């Protein structure tokens, strides 16, 4: 059991460094390459947004980082470094120690991630099992404190209630409170506001901003909602069909997107269309079937600007600015796509 102690390199500026990660799912129809050579970094103290349509691999990436992937999934290559430690070679027990302590996750649906038959207080005391010195009463007090921080009034009394006695918004706050209770270095939030009303979403965004400032934690925020990414994140990673097609600082991505997919995605957002129009823009075609990945660029079959080379060769990453990378043939030789 005694794991080889790795030297912990706290000098790294990135809390999380995902390099060339590829994930394969075994399915009855054949292997599905859900992620292909994905590289993402989360700088310490920052909020990184992971945006993409359903099936683009957002949640797979999150689960891979947590090492909570389903049994038919395997990581075929790449590395996952968390605070300087390689997670892929970490023994299961060591990983278990990290999870929920230095690395935690908030899921989309709080009703399924909270235990319906235990009170909120008991669940919040449970997850503090690592601390053997602290008394139950102190743990409860900490739990109540955290509930108050996420905006739940009368938190002492709320501890004795069960998840079904809270509204959807309250449950998501509780899930977030549980996610940050142990002050993780990295919080992975997978669509935490998708099921909520805009008014609550705005409150959760404000809450995550405050928490980042107070705890100086880092957040990997997954969403398909461009508006909320624009509101919250410092960096954006755009995933399409299992590949990172563009990533960079938020302003670069939203003000000067370089990849045709990013541009198309931004154009589709009805909130960004100032003029009222009945006919809304769409991205024609379908997401490629990951059983048969197109040769060449993954976006070429739907790309309005695709040329011959796009259908034949895989594009390389091009640097479009400081930290701004886009994977597109049209950017080769400095040509503006």
């Amino acid at each position, binding site marked *: 059991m005694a794991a080889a102690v790795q030297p912990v390199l706290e000098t790294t500026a990135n809390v999380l460094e995902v390099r060339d990660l590829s994930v394969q799912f075994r399915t009855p129809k054949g292997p599905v390459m859900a992620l292909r050579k994905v590289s993402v970094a989360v700088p310490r103290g920052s909020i990184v947004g992971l945006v993409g*349509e*359903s099936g683009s691999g957002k949640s797979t990436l999150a689960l891979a980082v947590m090492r909570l992937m389903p049994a038919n999934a395997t990581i075929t290559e790449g590395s996952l470094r968390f605070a300087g430690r390689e997670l892929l070679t970490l023994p299961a027990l060591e990983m278990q120690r990290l999870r929920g302590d230095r690395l935690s996750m908030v899921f989309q649906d709080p009703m399924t991630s909270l235990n319906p038959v235990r009170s909120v207080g008991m669940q919040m005391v449970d997850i503090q099992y690592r601390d053997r010195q602290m008394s139950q009463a102190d743990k409860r007090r900490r739990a109540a404190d955290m509930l108050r921080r996420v905006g739940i009034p009368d938190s002492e009394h709320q501890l004795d209630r069960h998840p079904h006695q809270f*509204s*959807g*918004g*309250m449950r998501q706050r509780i899930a977030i409170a549980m996610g940050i209770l142990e002050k993780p270095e990295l919080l992975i939030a997978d669509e935490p506001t*998708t099921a909520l*009303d*805009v*008014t*609550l*979403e*705005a*409150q959760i*965004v*404000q809450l995550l901003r405050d928490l980042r400032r107070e705890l100086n934690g880092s957040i990997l925020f997954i969403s*398909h*909602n*461009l*508006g*909320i990414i*624009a*509101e919250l*994140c410092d960096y954006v990673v755009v995933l399409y069909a299992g590949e990172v097609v563009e990533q960079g600082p*938020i*302003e670069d991505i*939203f*003000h000067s997107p370089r990849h045709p997919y990013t541009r*198309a*995605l*931004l154009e*589709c*957002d*009805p*909130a*960004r*269309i100032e003029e*009222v*129009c*009945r*006919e*809304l*823009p*769409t*991205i024609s075609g*379908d997401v490629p079937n990951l059983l048969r990945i197109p040769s060449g660029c993954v976006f070429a079959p739907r790309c309005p600007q695709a040329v011959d080379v796009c259908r034949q060769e895989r594009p390389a990453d091009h640097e479009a600015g400081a930290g701004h990378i886009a994977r597109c043939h049209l950017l080769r030789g400095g040509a503006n796509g």
Partner: protein
Amino acid sequence: MAEVSLAPSQQLLAANSDNTLLEVNHLHVRYPLVGRIRAKLFGIPNRFLDAVLDISFMLRRGRTLALVGESGSGKSTLGRAIIGLVPIAGGSIRFEGAEPFRTAKGGTKAYHRDVAMMFQDPISSLSPRRTVRSLVTEPFVVHALSDRDRDAEAKRLLALVGLPLDFAGRYPHQLSGGQARRVGVARAIALSPKLIIADEPTAGLDVSVQGEILNLMNRLQRELGLTYLIITHNLAVVRHVSDETAIMYMGRFVEHGPTSEIFAHPVHPYTAGLIAAQPHPDPAKRRTQVALLGEVPSMARRPEGCEFHTRCPGAKDLCRQVRPETQAISAQHLHRCHFPLMENLEACADASRRVV
């Protein structure tokens, strides 16, 4: 109809009603909090929860009305009451001048042919054991239209909603979210209805697919002359697809008017708060303050006075005591607020004066 004998004002109404498809008057829907049997057995007086209160509106042919509100505002209940899925406790619903639920059984059946519903979450509203062909032609079976050629109808409907014909043999689990929505649309238009009630037609869809579904609904509206009642919480979509918008809060319309006017000059603080709560798609224009705090109170504990006073930034004593009545800014634009936002009120009044 002997229109000659009507008073002038009624004549005007009658002329208008030609164009009016749906008319809802003082609609009231309530849910019992205690089961009927339990109430009888233990002699407890039954208490009720008012999900829809005093709602009146008219919907003209070929128009789109969007019902907007947070979860728990009663918008889905209103949609369900109009189609007859929940009983009405008071008020009336008139469709093409007749009251569908007060006529003989045959009238209600005919009404269900004229009014169709698109349910939230299309995958779970489709039976997993039936093929697309069977699903889209089910309405013909329900309405005993056995003379229709079901294969031909399935082909016609799939073509109308833009699905390839070979989808007829597929099962719901083989469909993507967008394709399942299209099947839902096909089911809704199967009997050539006049009004479609669409409950969250794009919830859970990616933005690119969302546009496709809305464009499809827009095309069908033009081609088939449909009238839509769209229930949604997505304001960004409402702005583009609807003619009129009604904002619901705790079962009441707090503001109702032309969509362009509501978005440009909301007069109810709740409407203004909802619009301000939309995330701004430009990272350079981030909001630093949260527009609307808290959540909708439970309908079982309805606040006194104006229901919104518990969250309203401008609430005064009057709001805590007296319930505001509906007031009109113009013939189309109504609100329910003691202290409407003055600037916007003036802008709306100016606009309507210009029209006159």
